[in-house]
Structures are given as structure tokens and as C-alpha cells.
């Protein structure tokens, strides 16, 4: 009897192991290894465009591709002062994109180029202000920043994850010196960096033989087994399906009201103030704006919360004596669009965040207008 059970054991383990690998191989063979998850999340109606001007990158995401933007700036031989524009996917996504369309970033870049300013845009999907704070501290040593343009998005006040390509800022000693005395900085250091500090180094994997050896085996395995390198995509597909499934079961849509999350809101509000302090300390002018939102239908926020948010952002801007404008109603309804379904149904949904190319043109003009006041420029775009 004992042997019998063991034989069953052997059989099911052997078949299960092989079948698991075989099924994954089949499933992954149909997956495009170049898939862009940002595009996947935005849906087929919306296109991501990280702009180039004269073949030089002027719109980057984070530390992953920042070196290209640094090169782009270096190509300006006279080390032009930088207008830094930080934001979320609104800056790099175009709804119902057509060939030849462009986002606001390259348009502003060209307007200001005439005055010898280099406009550099960094944006990430659902970027929160703590991420902007880290990036801003990091970029201070890398560019001669003249003006910071900062949209404050209510939706992103619900976020507080720091993506790995921004978390790397916490390893940069110069950036750490800039942030380690602030509320946001202390909180981020204790949350992400303490694992590597002396009191807890037994938990850190960096700089261990394990780490370097592991990377090397991982790389070799990826070369001989294509599935290994596609696992990121498989994880993304799995989480994407779970997200759609959750929304279908709970009836969640793009129009479903999203409530403010107080703890995260306060953290992001603190980060907003820390960004302003850092900018003022470095004599950088700041333009803060409330970004355009689709206003022909009910917005997916509780109105009181949203109004309080706008008032608070404005009040802080006034307290710090920085430039503030609300661009909420800038883009008329015809320049917005729909996005792919956020649940398992095929039905498209309203997109509150990403507008069409014409919306980007309006945004570029509005931002230019504000910047020209700050920089006392004379010509119209």
C-alpha cells in the first residue's frame, strides 16, 4: 500500500511538472515579448508617445531612460536652462491618436527653444507626488533647472507606491542629502532604504555573492529558455486578468466614484510642500496647475472631496507664493474620448484622463502662456 501511494506520488509530480512547463511554454509562445504594459493598460484607443525633437529625446519616463534625456540636453551645447515638466500619463498619452499627432511636450519644447530654454518632460502612469519629489531631487544635480511645471492630479493622490526605477533615487547619496530631513524623505527612507541600513543588513541582498551569482544564472537561463525572459509579461497578463475579473464581479467601471484615501492624500500633500520647499531653496520658479478633466459628464470623484482638494492645492501655492492655475475646463468635450473596457466586457468606457491631439495643443498653449508670464517672454507661440 505504501509503495502504491508513493508511485501515485511520482506519477502526478512528474506529469504535473512537465505539464506545468509545457502549458506555460505554449501560452507564452503567443505573447509578444515586446509588449508595453503601459499601452496594454491604456487600451487600444490610446497611444503612448514619448517625444523626440530633432531626434533627441525630450520626454522620458524615469531613471530607466533618463540617460537619453540627459544626452538630449547635452546636445544643446550652451547648457540651456531647463523647464522641467513632471506629470502622469496625461502628458504622454493621446486618445484616438492619428499619424503625425504629438503631445504637448514637444510643442512646448519648440516654443521655448526660441528663447534658449530646454523643456524636459518626465511622466509615468499614475505618478504620485512622492515619486515626483524623488525625481526632482535627483534631477537637480543633473540639469540647470529654471522652472518646474507640476500638475496635481486628484486621482494620483490615492497612490503611494514608488516604482523601482524611481526608488533607485534612494540609493543616490546626493539626492538623499536633499531629502533626508523632510517628512516625505524620512518616510520613504524608512520604508524602502532601511532594509539596507546597518541595523537590518542581514535582510539585504545587494552586494552579496548571492546577488551577483543569481543575476548571472538568471541571464544564462534566459538565453537558453525563452519562457524565462517572458515571465514579467506573464505576471502582467495574470494581474491584468485578475483586475478585469475583479471589476466585472464588483461592477467597477471608469465612472465609478473613487474616494479619497486620507493617509495617502496627506503623504502626497506633504510631498507637494516638500517639492515646493526644495524648489524655493534652489531658487527655482514653480508653476502648479490643476490638470484638464472631462467635465461634460459627472467626474468619478466625490465633489466635496474634489473641491476641497483644489482649494487646498491653491492655498498652499499662495502660501508659497508660486504660480498657480486651474486648467480643469481647458479641453472641451469633443477632444476627449473613450478607452478600452476596464472589465471583462467588450464595451468601451469614458476616459477622464487622456484627451486627443487637439487637447494636447490647447494644453501646450495654456502652459506656454503661464510660463511666458513667469519668464517674462514676449512672443506668442
Amino acid at each position, binding site marked *: 500500500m505504501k509503495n*502504491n501511494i*508513493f508511485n*501515485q*506520488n*511520482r*506519477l*502526478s*509530480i*512528474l*506529469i*504535473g*511538472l512537465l*505539464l*506545468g*512547463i509545457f*502549458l*506555460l511554454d505554449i501560452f507564452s509562445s503567443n505573447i509578444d515579448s515586446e509588449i508595453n504594459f503601459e499601452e496594454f493598460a491604456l487600451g487600444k484607443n490610446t497611444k503612448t508617445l514619448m517625444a523626440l525633437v530633432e531626434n533627441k529625446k525630450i520626454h522620458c519616463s524615469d531613471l530607466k531612460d533618463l540617460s537619453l534625456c540627459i544626452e538630449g540636453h547635452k546636445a544643446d551645447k550652451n547648457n540651456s536652462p531647463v523647464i522641467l515638466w513632471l506629470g502622469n500619463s496625461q502628458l504622454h498619452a493621446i486618445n484616438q491618436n492619428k499619424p503625425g499627432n504629438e503631445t504637448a511636450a514637444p510643442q512646448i519644447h519648440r516654443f521655448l527653444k526660441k528663447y534658449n530654454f530646454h523643456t524636459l518632460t518626465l511622466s509615468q502612469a499614475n505618478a504620485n507626488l512622492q515619486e515626483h519629489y524623488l525625481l526632482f531631487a535627483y534631477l537637480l544635480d543633473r540639469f540647470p533647472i529654471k522652472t518646474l511645471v507640476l500638475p496635481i492630479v486628484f486621482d494620483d493622490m*490615492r497612490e*503611494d*507606491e514608488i516604482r523601482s526605477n524611481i526608488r533607485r533615487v534612494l540609493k543616490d547619496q546626493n539626492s538623499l542629502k536633499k531629502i533626508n530631513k523632510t517628512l516625505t524623505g524620512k*518616510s520613504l527612507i*524608512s*520604508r524602502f532604504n532601511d532594509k539596507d541600513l*546597518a*541595523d*537590518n*543588513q*542581514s*535582510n539585504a*541582498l545587494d552586494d*552579496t*555573492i*548571492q546577488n551577483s*551569482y*543569481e543575476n548571472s*544564472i*538568471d541571464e544564462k*537561463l534566459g538565453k537558453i529558455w525563452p*519562457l524565462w525572459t517572458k*515571465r514579467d509579461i*506573464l*505576471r502582467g497578463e*495574470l494581474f491584468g486578468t485578475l483586475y478585469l475579473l*475583479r471589476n466585472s464581479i*464588483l461592477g467597477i467601471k471608469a465612472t465609478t466614484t473613487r*474616494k479619497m*484615501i*486620507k*493617509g*495617502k492624500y*496627506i*503623504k502626497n500633500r506633504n510631498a507637494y510642500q516638500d517639492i515646493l520647499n526644495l524648489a524655493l531653496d534652489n531658487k527655482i520658479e514653480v508653476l502648479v496647475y490643476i490638470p484638464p478633466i472631462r467635465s461634460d459628464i459627472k467626474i468619478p470623484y466625490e465633489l466635496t472631496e474634489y473641491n476641497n482638494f483644489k482649494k487646498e492645492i491653491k492655498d498652499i501655492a499662495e502660501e508659497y507664493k508660486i504660480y498657480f492655475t486651474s486648467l480643469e475646463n481647458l479641453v472641451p468635450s469633443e477632444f476627449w474620448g473613450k478607452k478600452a473596457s476596464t472589465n471583462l466586457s467588450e464595451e468601451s468606457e469614458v476616459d477622464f484622463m487622456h484627451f486627443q491631439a487637439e487637447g494636447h495643443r490647447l494644453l501646450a498653449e495654456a502652459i506656454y502662456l503661464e510660463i511666458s508670464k513667469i519668464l517674462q517672454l514676449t512672443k506668442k507661440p
Partner: protein
Amino acid sequence: MIFNSLSYLLLLLIVITLYWLLPYRARLVLIFSASLIFYGFWKINFIPVLLISVIVDWWVSQKMLKCDKRNRFFLLLGSLTTNLSLLFYFKYLIFFADNSIGFANLLGVELDPIAFKIILPLGISFYTFQTISYTVDVYRGFIKPEKDFILFACYVTFFPQLVAGPILRAKEVIPQFTNRPSFSFDYIFIGIRFILFGLFLKVVMADNLSILVDSGFAIDVKYISAIDVWTLAFLFGFQIYFDFSAYSFIALGSARMMGIIFPNNFNFPYISTSPKDFWQRWHISLSSWIRDYLYLPLNKTKVLDRSEGGLAKAVKTKGTNKSLFITMGLMGLWHGANWTFLIWGIYHAIVISIYRLIEPKTLNFSERFRFLGGILVTLPVMMLSWIPFRANSLNDALGMWLKIFNPLAYTWLGMRENVYIITFLVLISFFIVYFFKVKILPIINSKKFISIICDTILITFVTSMVIVFFRSINQFIYFQF
């Protein structure tokens, strides 16, 4: 080296192959060398600390063989002093210094904080307890000292259990090194099964829950609600359970592939019907150690001398509350040099004291009522204990605990909706898995063909999930203890 890494799987493959091919002596050298490589992969400069512990306890045990009782006692003291001094230096010195300075400042003596950095050697709490148990057992006359140094070193450093247990007794492991059974593929396949399930619990469950837990505990206590406190308590309770039981599964599986059998370290702890039940299901080897080397000796009661059974006997024993509080407090501090861990231990001591008072009054209730009622009461009580265990500071822990007594703190939510949904799903899944194991599995196992089909589907699912999520990004939580 961590278990959820390709380097470990490669090392294991090499060691298992050679282990079954080599003769006795070479086999021991293989295990000892593999264990040092395993340890050195993290930081090679801490191997001497490990070896000091091994050499001192081996030497002391040899000397004990030739001594009278009085000198044996001094040798025991010497061994305890060496081991506990190492542990104190690496684990508790900074905590002790910081608190002493804080206390002095409180008394008006102005002292500046001492700025020194001490890195905690991986697994020091585990191998220190293992060597202490050996020397104490030799002193008590429970075991004869092992003359073969390499064999003894294999017992202390055996890589599957070196850095996070289970904490095993010499008499359970050493004979298994000396008497290798004849090779059977069953050892390999059972080992693979354990390792697969362990990796699933770690890379699929624990590592993904950790993102939500870290984010939740990073929120300022002022802005989290009572519902958030409960949610985080349950969520971390499951994260640490999956993480640590995953480690134990992989340790059990790795040892089993060499024909070495370790006792179980976990047994569905959240299905416990009482604190007594919990302490015979959770981290069984540590609670058994605490029972035999601390609690029962404090109560001058006969020890059980095995790494199974947990603290159940200690919970039921009508020992003094003083010894209970000392035992649980020290067990808390064993986990880390922080007041939060002490509070965790004291909390459990209080729960056990209350249980001792209540338990006789529940004996008249029906079995079913005791079972269901027991789970409903024990589960939240045990989960709440994880708040100080995970909180960032004592202030945060107390602040979070206080929230649950504030009715107004139940009127809002402070985290993303997903956190509540996932916590609920994990809780429900846990009970479904338990129900499946206890009620459905025996029925399935009685039908051979269905059993193979179900098992194959399960292994297929587990294998594919492990491959997709396998990343050596996170250490096991217990590595830091």
C-alpha cells in the same frame, strides 16, 4: 543563500546527486562544505562567528565527558556565556546601549547616542539555540557527546535548517547522518513536492502579500481606521505564516531528498481552537525548544526532550504566571531587539493566562460549539498579536491597538479597496484549503485514478505559478531574527 533562488536550486541538485553517491566520510565533508558555501553566499565574513559556536560547543561537550558534575556545570556556563555573548553582541548590544542612554537621559545624565553599526549574522538566533540545546542535553545526560567533529558540525550547520530552523535536537538529526537509508526515488519526489509547495507559498503568496502589508504599515497611524488595523493584522498574519511555513517546507523537502526526515514546523495554526492549540501548531520547533529549555525548567517540571508538541503542555501546566511571562517575554525578544517583540510575547502570556482561567468553564459546552467558538475567538486574538510584531515602532503598535477600541474609528477606510478584497479572499481560501484537506482529500485518496488526476492538476498549477513568480527579490522574514 536564499531558498527562492536559482543558485540554491543548483547547489541542491549538486549536493543531492553527490550525497547518494559518496561514502559516509566524504558525505559528511560534502554536507559541511555545502553548508559553509550556503552560508558564505550571503556574507563570507560571518562564517568565523558560526564556526566559533560550533567549535566551542563541540570542545565543551568533549570535556564534559571526562568531568565531575561540578566542572560539567562550569563548562556548561562557559558554553552558554560564549553563545549568549555572541548573540548579545550582534543582536542586542545596540538596543541595550540605546535604551541605557535613553534611561540615563531620563534621569538627567546627558549622554550622546553611540553611533556604531553591527550587522546581524544570518541565522544566529537559530544556530545559537541549536548549539545550546546540544550542550544542555549533554550536561543533562540525555545524549552522549559526539566525538566526530565533522558530524557535529554537520548537525549545527546543516544548510536546509541553518538560517531559519526548524531548531532540531541532536538525537533527531545525528543518527540520520550516520545511518543513511538506501536510495529511493520516493525521497526525491516527496522532497520535490515539499519544495514546490514551499516555493508557491513564498513567491506567489507571501511576496505578493508583502507589497500590500508594507504599504499598509507605512501609512501614518493617525490616518488608518480600526477596520484597517484588523485588515493589516490578518494580512500580515497570513504573510508571515506563508513566508515562514514556506521556508520550513523547503527545508523539509531539501532534507528529505537526502533521506533525512525533519518534523513539521507548522500545522494550520489559524485553525486553532485555543491558545494552547495555537502553540502546538505555530513554529513548533521553537516553542518546543522554549518549553524544554526555559519554561519547564523554570517550573522545575520534567522536560519532554523533543522538538515536537510545541508549547501546548506549557500552556496547560498550572505553572506560575511569573515563569509564563518570563518565557513568553524572552521568546518575544528572541525574535528581535525591540520593545515591540517583547510586547508580542507579553501579549501571548496574557492571552494564555486568561485562557487558563476560562478553559475549565467551557468544558460543559458541546464539542462542535467548542470547536467553532474556539476558532472564532482564537483567530482574531492571535491575529491581533501580529500588530506589534510588524509595526514600525512601539508607539505605532499601541496606536493601532487603541484604534480597535474606538467605535468612531470603524466609520471609514484608509487603504486601497484591493487590500480588503485580497485579505478576505486569503482568509476564505485558507479555510477552504483546510476543509479540503480534512474532508475531501481522504475521499479523493480512496479513489486511485481520481486522486492522480487531482494531484496532477494541483502540481501543474503550482509548478506554472512558481515558474511565473520565481524571483529572489525578498528574503524570508525569519532571516532577520
